[in-house]
C-alpha cells in the first residue's frame, strides 16, 4: 500500500471480554497499517470494537475483564504486546499519545492543566519542574489557548469544553509523539468547536509530520480529516480504502449502508435509508459473514463461511464474498 515501512502495523489482533455469557470476542482478527504522516480513520457504530482496538494499541485494555487472544501490534518494528510494562511506559505519551472523547472526565480535576501536561514531559524527558512547565506553556500556546502563561495554572473545570479538548491535545503533543491516537475527540463538542479542533489537528499534523489514528462514527468528520479509512463492524474490519475511494465507490455493503444513512443524503419527504436490524451481540455472532442478516445483497453462500478481507482494487480491501459481483452506491 505505502512505500515506506508503516509506523504502526496491527496484525491479526483479537481481544476478548468476560461477559455474563462467558468470553466474547469484541475485536476479532483485526489488521491494518498506519503509514508515517498519514491519518487513518477507524469508523464504526457503537459497540463495533473501534475503541477497544485503540486501547489495545496502547496496551490499556482493562484486564480483567479483557484479555488478548492473539495478534501482534508492531510499532516501528517492536511488538507492543510482548513489550514489558517498563518499555510500554517509555512508548506511551512519548512515541504514541492519545486524546479521548470526554475532555471533562479525561483530565484529572484535582490538578492544574499545566501540572498534567508538565508531568508527561518530566517523565519522558527527565527535566525539572520549571522547564517542564515552560514546555506546557509552549504547547498550550501551540494549540491556541489564549494567555497560556496564566492559563497553565487553571484547573480543568475552569475551562470550557473546547478549551479542555485543546488542553488534552496539548498534553498529547507535549513530547512530540510519532503517532497520535484520537478516540472520538470531537464527538462531545459543538459543531463550531468541532471544526476548530479538526482544523487544529490537521495543522499540527502537517507541522510535525505525525501519523494519526482517528476513531469516529461520523462520516462527515472522516471526509474532513482522514487519508485512508478502515470500517469496523461487529469486531471486524470489513473494509479498508482511501478516503475518496471509500466515499465514491465503497467496497462493502455495510459501508454503503452507513453512507446512505447520512441524513444529508436523504431527500426531503422520502424515508431515510436504514440498515435494517441491529448489530449482533458479541456472544451471538451470526455464522458466515457477520453482516449477512442485515445485508440487502446477501445470498445463501454468505452464511457458508467467514469471508476474508480481500483486496478488490489497488488500495482497497473488502470483507465481502460478493464484492466482485455487486456495484455499490457512494455518496455522490
Amino acid at each position, binding site marked *: 500500500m505505502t512505500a515506506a515501512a508503516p509506523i504502526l502495523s496491527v496484525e491479526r489482533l483479537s481481544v476478548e471480554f468476560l461477559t455474563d455469557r462467558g468470553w466474547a470476542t469484541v475485536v476479532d482478527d483485526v489488521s491494518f497499517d498506519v503509514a508515517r504522516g498519514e491519518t487513518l480513520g477507524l469508523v464504526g*457504530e457503537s459497540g463495533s470494537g473501534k475503541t477497544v482496538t485503540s486501547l489495545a494499541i496502547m496496551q490499556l485494555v482493562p484486564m480483567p475483564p479483557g484479555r488478548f487472544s492473539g495478534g501482534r501490534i508492531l510499532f516501528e518494528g517492536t511488538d507492543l504486546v510482548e513489550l514489558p510494562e517498563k518499555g510500554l511506559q517509555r512508548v506511551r505519551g512519548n512515541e504514541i499519545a492519545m486524546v479521548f472523547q470526554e475532555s471533562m472526565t479525561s483530565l484529572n480535576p484535582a490538578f492544574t492543566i499545566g501540572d498534567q501536561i508538565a508531568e508527561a514531559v518530566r517523565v519522558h524527558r527527565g527535566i525539572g519542574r520549571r522547564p517542564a512547565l515552560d514546555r506546557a506553556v509552549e504547547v498550550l500556546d501551540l494549540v491556541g489557548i489564549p494567555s497560556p502563561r496564566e492559563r497553565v495554572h487553571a484547573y480543568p473545570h475552569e475551562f470550557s469544553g473546547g478549551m479542555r479538548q485543546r488542553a488534552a491535545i496539548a498534553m498529547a503533543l507535549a513530547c512530540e509523539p510519532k503517532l497520535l491516537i484520537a478516540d472520538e475527540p470531537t464527538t462531545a463538542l459543538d459543531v463550531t468547536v468541532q*471544526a476548530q479542533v479538526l482544523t487544529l489537528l490537521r495543522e499540527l499534523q502537517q507541522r510535525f509530520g505525525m501519523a494519526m489514528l482517528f476513531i469516529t462514527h461520523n462520516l462527515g*468528520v472522516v471526509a474532513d480529516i482522514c487519508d485512508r479509512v478502515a470500517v469496523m463492524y461487529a469486531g471486524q474490519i470489513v473494509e479498508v480504502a482511501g478516503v475518496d475511494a471509500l466515499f465514491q465507490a465503497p467496497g462493502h455493503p455495510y459501508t454503503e449502508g452507513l453512507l446512505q*444513512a447520512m441524513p444529508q443524503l*436523504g431527500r426531503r419527504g422520502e424515508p431515510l435509508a436504514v440498515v435494517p436490524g441491529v448489530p449482533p451481540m458479541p456472544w451471538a455472532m451470526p455464522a458466515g459473514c457477520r453482516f449477512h442478516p442485515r445485508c440487502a445483497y446477501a445470498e445463501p453462500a454468505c452464511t457458508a463461511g467467514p469471508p476474508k478481507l480481500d483486496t478488490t482494487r489497488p488500495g482497497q480491501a473488502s470483507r465481502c464474498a460478493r464484492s466482485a459481483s455487486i456495484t455499490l452506491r457512494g455518496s455522490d
Partner: protein
Amino acid sequence: MNTNHLLEVRDLSVVFRIGGGLLAPRRELRAVNGVSFGIAPGETLAVVGESGSGKSTIARAVMRLIEPASGSVVLDGTDITQLTGQALRRIRPRLQMVFQDPYSSLDPSKLIRDVVAEPLVVHRRLAGAALDARVEQLLEQVGLGAYHLDRYPYEFSGGQRQRIAIARAIALEPSLLVLDEAVSALDVSTQNQILNLLADLRRAHGIAYLFISHDLGVVRHIADRVAVTYLGRIVETGPTERIFTATAHPYTEALLAAVPIPNPALQRQRRAPPLVGDIPSPLAPPPGCPFHTRCPRAMPVCSTEPPRHVPVDGGGTVACHLHD
C-alpha cells in the same frame, strides 16, 4: 398573532437562579430570552442550536415542566402558562414529549405494558380489555411486537426504548409532540429508523412536531421550518430550504460551514476558517447582539444595540444589524 397556529409562543423568557447562600451572591441565568415562534397544525418546526443555546429549556417551558419568567405559550387559544392544577392536567394530552436519554426516561421498575398504558390510565381514558388492546396497538404502531409487553425496560436497546417512549407519547393522540434531541443518543441507522417512524406518524395522524436538535443534517431532512438559537435567543427563522440555501444570519452561516459534508473532495475545498472562541457564558451574556464576540462581520453597533427581527426574502426573519 397568527390565528392559524396550533401553538403560539410569545416573548418567552426563562430565568434560572443559581447559587445563593451565605455571602455568595445569587446569580441569574437567562436561559431563554424573549423567544417567539408559532407552529401550524401538522407542521414540524426545528429549533437548532449548540449547547447552552437554551433549546432544551424552550422545550421544557412549552411543556410547562419549568415555569417561564415571562411570556405566553398559547395552545389552540389557551395560554397554558396561566393554567394550574386540574386545568393544566386536562390540556396535557394535547401536548406530549419524548426525551433525549432513552435510558433514564423509562421507569426501570415498570413493565412496558404499564409504561405505555400510564397516560391512558392517568387520564381515565380506557380500562380493562380495551386498554390492553390499545396498548398492543400502540406498540405495533411504533414497530414493536405485542410480545414485548411483559418485559422490563432493561431488556431493550436504546432505539427500542425510544420507540416505547414514542408509543407512550402518542397514546393520548396529541396534536403536538415535543421531541427534545430524541434521536441524538442513537447510532445513525437506528436514528433513521426513528426519524422514519416519526414521519409515518405525522402522515397518519397529522401530529405537529417541535423538533429540538443540534444536528443540522437531520433538521434539514425533517423540518418544515427552522429556528436557529444562540445564547437563549432566536437569531434566525424561516422555511428550511431558505435557511440552508439563502442563509441570512452570520451564525447560521458559520454553523452550516462547520458541519463537514460526506464528500472528501468537496469538503477539502469548502473548509472555511472556523469560528473563533467559545459560546460566552449565559451567566454573563455580551451586550448588544449575543453573537458579536465571535462574529466575523461584527460592526461597532453590534456590541451596543441588540438587533431586531426583520423579515427576510424567501420567508422568516433574522435578527442581525447587517439586515437593518
